Every structure is written in structure tokens, then in C-alpha cells.
């Protein structure tokens, strides 16, 4: 075994030297594609902060655009990119399990405010699903699109898990969920002013329920209390929609 190890390292070194003459080889490697993804993410975040957090320059929008353009320029298949960066996608599993922590930390709020929290959770989540599906259905969206839109207000790892169960396109869902988060976090403060909702608890809970992680980040900018209620709403909505969506979706498709 020990004698094999240097040999394999040598082999991989040799293959990387060979690929210098054929640039497409190393530009298609997991090493390059994971580096590209991390770099785009870092630059996207820095750019977002430097430009004063303009909503359509959200790091997710800029970094995914940058990655997609690079892939097109280098003629890398999307399927190839996805399998090369699978390591990052894999971590969504443990990240979903990790959402138990904020839920655990803020669960005491559920005990003291059970009625408003549970009622809002049920009404808000069902409204988030049915309003979108009803609109999309009346605008003539196909069944596949309806399935992919259904979990849009849920945090991405849970939404992708739901898509595994009900069907639909994971790529469309990922894009739709991210856009929903960015749109929700941007328009929510304006809506709160318009309908005169001042309580930070209500603002936070609404942001977490309708705009998942992006909304939760926005809620933490409002106040710690808003952030706590957003984290709570994010976890509860994820679980509630994962439980009811497989049944609710039958009304539409």
C-alpha cells in the first residue's frame, strides 16, 4: 500500500503535466471547477458588500452568472460541472440536518406564543404554495414547472429534498428558490411599511417564512429579535411544507 501511494501521486502529477499541453483537461477537473465556484462566491460577496447591497447584485445572482459564463466560454457541460463539484452539493445534506440547531435554540418562543406562531405558519405556508401554483397554473405553466415552483418559499436544501420526493426539475427549483428569497427580502420591508407592520417579531417571522435564508439574513439586519423569529420560521416552514406538500400538490397536478 505504502509503495502504491507515491506511484499514484506520481501518476496524477504526470497527468497534470500532460494536460498543460491540452488546456481543456485541467480546466475540466474538479480542482479547477471547485476553485472557480469558491472564487466566484467570494468575489460575489465582496462585490455585494462594496456596492451597498443592491438587491439584484445579490452574491448568488452574480456568482452563478459568472460561473455559468465561464462554463460556456470553456465549453464545459453543465452535467460535467455538477458532477465535478458534487462535494459542495453533498454538504447540503448535513446542512439540512444542521437547521435543527437554530430551531432548537429558538424553540422556547413557540411555547410562549404557540397560537400566533402555529396559525401563521399554517396559513402563511399554504398561502405561499397555493398563490404561486394558482397563478402559474392560470398562466399556463406545465405540470413539471408547477412541481418545481411548489417548494419556492422553503430553504434550498429542503426544497431540493422535496423535489426528490414529488418530482420536478431540481435546477429550476434551485433558481426559483434563490430568486424568491432575493425578491422577498427586498420587497418585504416596503410591504411592512405599506401595511403598517412594526413588530420585529412579525417582520422576522414573515421574512423567514416567505424568503427562507435570504430573508433570515435580512431579518438579522433589522434586529436580533427579528433574526431569531426568522430562523424559527425558516425551520418550521421547511418541516411543515415538507410534510404537507406531497398532499397539497395533488390539488394542482
Amino acid at each position, binding site marked *: 500500500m505504502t509503495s502504491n501511494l507515491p506511484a499514484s501521486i506520481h501518476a496524477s502529477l504526470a497527468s497534470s503535466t500532460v494536460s498543460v499541453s491540452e488546456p481543456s483537461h485541467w480546466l475540466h477537473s474538479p480542482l479547477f471547477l471547485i476553485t472557480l465556484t469558491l472564487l466566484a462566491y467570494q468575489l460575489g460577496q465582496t462585490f455585494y458588500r462594496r456596492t451597498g447591497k443592491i438587491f439584484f447584485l445579490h452574491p448568488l445572482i452574480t456568482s452563478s452568472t459568472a460561473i455559468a459564463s465561464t462554463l460556456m466560454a470553456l465549453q464545459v457541460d453543465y452535467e460535467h460541472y455538477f458532477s465535478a463539484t458534487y462535494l459542495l452539493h453533498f454538504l447540503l445534506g448535513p446542512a439540512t440536518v444542521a437547521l435543527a440547531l437554530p430551531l432548537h435554540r429558538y424553540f422556547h418562543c413557540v411555547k410562549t406564543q404557540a397560537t400566533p406562531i402555529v396559525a401563521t405558519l399554517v396559513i402563511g405556508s399554504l398561502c405561499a404554495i397555493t398563490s404561486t401554483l394558482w397563478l402559474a397554473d392560470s398562466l399556463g405553466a406545465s405540470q413539471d414547472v408547477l412541481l418545481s415552483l411548489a417548494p419556492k418559499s422553503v430553504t434550498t*436544501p429542503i426544497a431540493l429534498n422535496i423535489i426528490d420526493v414529488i418530482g420536478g426539475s431540481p435546477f429550476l427549483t434551485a433558481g426559483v428558490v434563490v430568486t424568491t428569497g432575493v425578491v422577498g427580502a427586498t420587497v418585504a420591508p416596503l410591504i411592512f411599511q405599506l401595511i403598517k407592520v412594526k413588530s420585529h417579531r412579525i417582520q422576522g417571522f414573515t421574512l423567514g417564512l416567505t424568503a427562507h435564508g435570504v430573508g433570515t439574513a435580512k431579518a438579522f439586519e433589522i434586529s436580533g429579535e427579528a433574526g431569531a423569529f426568522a430562523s424559527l420560521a425558516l425551520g418550521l416552514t421547511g418541516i411543515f411544507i415538507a410534510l404537507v406538500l406531497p398532499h397539497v400538490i395533488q390539488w394542482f397536478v
Partner: protein
Amino acid sequence: MLKGLLVLLIFQCLGEAISQLSDIPISGPIIGMLLLFLALQIYPHQHLTSIETCSTNLITHLPLLFLPAGVGIFFLDPEYLNQWPAIFVSMILGTILAIVITAMTMKLITENRHDK
């Protein structure tokens, strides 16, 4: 950090096993999350710091983790492309409706409770 990741993976495995062995239409990681939540409620201090370090890191960088899937929006099948107007309009109006109804519901219920 590593111990925390191990705990998360063990709970994901448990969730996956339950999801595979039963007919529940819920995926493994979500069952894993529910199990971990229950475990934390029952034993609040067991390995909490290492789980917390790892979880906070993963949750902070969630956007990075969904980039591989998110980039797929630029490479969609042509069958979805002609449905863009329906997708876009329903997504934005649906989100606005959901925000209004959620905030109003919670406001009405909280105010009624204070009146009593």
C-alpha cells in the same frame, strides 16, 4: 468541527434509513433534522459546542453549497424557456401575496390576544 460533522452525518444516515424503510414521503436529511431536533430537546447539552460550530459554518455558507445546483438555471431544457413569463410572474406576485397574508395574519392574531 469534525465531531459535529460526524453527528450531522449520523443523523442524516438515520433519517435516510427511516425514509428508505418506510413509506413516508419525506427525504432522509429532513427526518435527520427532526431526529436531531428531538435529541437536542431531550439532551440539550450533549456535544452541543462541536455540533454548533459545524452547523453555524454550514448554515453561514449555505449559498455556496447550492451554487452547483443554482447554476443549472442557465442550462435549462428549452421546454422551460418558453414558460419564463408564467414562472416569473407567479413567483414574484406569489411571494408578495404570501408576505402580505403572513404579516397580516400574525398581526391580527397578536393584536386580538393583547385585547383580551
